[in-house]
């Protein structure tokens, strides 16, 4: 199947949906692809007991009211086809070749998941992952949960877990108490964030909220039964059924890198003040251009949508908003960047690459990422290093490579769709 659109948006979170709306309102024929079964991305994730939030309902309804918008869920971009075309796989329609006039990347972010002893046990998930799993219908009522890692996401996860009836026995934050105090004081610059923090931490009294602390080990027979936490110098062991641990977010830049878009020093897609990447016809918005939160993603998406449509409305108000949320993002990054304890290398027998069961000990003797891949198969499995690569960057400071096409496991039938077209770029 061949399709052509003026504008293709990859990702249906706050950035992608707002980009699509602005572009379609200006008359462009727009398609939005997202790999999840429902629109909203991670921050606006819906589920059987989680109705769409108001801002999602509003933008989704607007898109459905526009004649030239195609919203396709459960669609993955598998590869690139020259020129200006993607090979995608849809759960519903199978393989498709999709060409575009302009492309907006709104591919979001994933959690930075750092290994610790026992982290492969069922019951260990990311912190944001816990929230996603609960929203997807995973029952946690009565379960004892330890939420750990770093950043505001821990509090969002806490609120979701409690609302679902879980007993959150501790929140373990690696950032120090003093840097958190400074961060909370700075929230007066963004009153809506202060209100959000107050809502998420309602009933905080009685909860163990441990700063300057990290998870060291999970133990259990076949699934999580205990967690050991390093709190300052002390080791503390707690009984629990789940450990939800994530150290902030990393931008999803696989597609951007395959297209040849330049990245910035933080590993995010580099964009100018009109959200244009270094590649002609490719724009980017939201978390893939730097971790900044939902408000920033919405504004960036709207700017990108205006820019692709060729309309030149006054963007100055949006730019002021963007600067404001960028400053907030910088404060978040300064507060929650993984410190020494979080970056301490786990024991040699800890699995680093979960796809190929390669340990820290096997990888740390390698010179660099490519060496590790060739000698140990680290990063060569189904996730193509999306998890262990981010960990290797954190531990060893290595430059890691991005996944190659097919970017995700794909059906032969999808790959056959690509036959008439030479790939635009492979590594």
């Amino acid at each position, binding site marked *: 199947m061949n399709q052509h659109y003026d504008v293709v948006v990859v990702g249906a979170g706050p950035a992608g949906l707002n980009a699509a709306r602005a572009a379609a309102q200006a008359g462009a024929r727009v398609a939005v692809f997202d*790999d*999840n*079964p*429902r*629109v909203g991305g*991670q921050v606006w994730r*819906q*589920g*059987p*007991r989680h109705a*769409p939030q108001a801002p999602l309902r509003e933008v989704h309804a607007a898109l459905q009211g526009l004649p030239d918008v195609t919203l396709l*869920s*459960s669609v993955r971009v598998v590869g690139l086809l020259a020129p200006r075309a993607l090979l995608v796989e849809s*759960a519903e329609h199978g393989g498709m070749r999709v060409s575009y006039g302009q492309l907006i990347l709104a591919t979001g972010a*994933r*959690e930075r*998941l750092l290994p610790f002893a026992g982290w*492969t*046990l*069922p*019951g*260990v*998930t*990311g912190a*944001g*992952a*816990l*929230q*996603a*799993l609960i929203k*997807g*219908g*995973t*029952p946690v009522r009565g379960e004892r949960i330890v939420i750990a890692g770093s950043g505001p996401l821990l509090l969002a996860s806490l609120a979701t877990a409690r609302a679902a009836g879980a007993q959150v026995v501790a929140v373990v934050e690696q950032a120090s108490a003093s840097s958190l105090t400074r961060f909370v004081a700075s929230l007066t610059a963004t009153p809506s964030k202060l209100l959000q923090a107050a809502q998420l931490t309602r009933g905080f009294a009685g909860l163990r909220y441990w700063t300057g602390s990290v998870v060291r080990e999970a133990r259990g027979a*076949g*699934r999580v039964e205990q967690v050991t936490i390093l709190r300052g110098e002390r080791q503390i062991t707690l009984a629990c059924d789940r450990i939800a641990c994530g150290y902030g977010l990393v931008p999803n830049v696989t597609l951007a890198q395959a297209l040849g878009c330049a990245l910035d020093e933080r590993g995010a897609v580099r964009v100018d003040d009109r959200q244009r990447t270094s590649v002609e016809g490719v724009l980017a918005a939201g978390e893939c251009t730097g971790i900044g939160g939902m408000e920033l993603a919405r504004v960036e998406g709207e700017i990108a949508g205006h820019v692709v449509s060729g309309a030149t409305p006054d963007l100055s108000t949006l730019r002021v908003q963007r600067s404001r949320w960028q400053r907030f993002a910088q404060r978040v990054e300064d507060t929650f960047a993984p410190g020494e304890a979080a970056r301490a290398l786990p024991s040699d027998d800890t699995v680093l690459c*979960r*796809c*190929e*069961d390669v340990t820290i000990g096997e990888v740390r003797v390698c010179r660099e990422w490519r060496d590790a891949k060739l000698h140990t198969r680290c990063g060569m*499995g*189904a*996730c193509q290093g*999306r*998890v262990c690569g981010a960990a290797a960057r954190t531990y060893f400071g290595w430059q890691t490579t991005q996944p190659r096409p097919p970017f995700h*496991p794909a*059906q032969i039938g999808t790959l056959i769709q690509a036959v008439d077209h030479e790939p635009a770029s492979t590594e």
Partner: protein
Amino acid sequence: MSSRTGERVRLTIDARTVEVEAGTLVVAALVIAGLRGTRTSVNGQPRAALCGMGICQECRVTIDGRAHALACQTACRDGQIIQTTGPA
């Protein structure tokens, strides 16, 4: 995409039948069915969903005969058949 609250769907997971609320993800249905994991790793260890958002591939299962489908990115449907390679 959306489903009415309260509507139920029935699916089969490793020969067990389980009924869940419409809109539930397969990864949640596995837990509801009492499974402890989704797959067995290269070295024979049990694994379950880690990232919950289509990145880590730990939750891959066979859905209606299609191998390597991600349970965290698939909604339950009536009559669906799921096969895992994880611990019973």
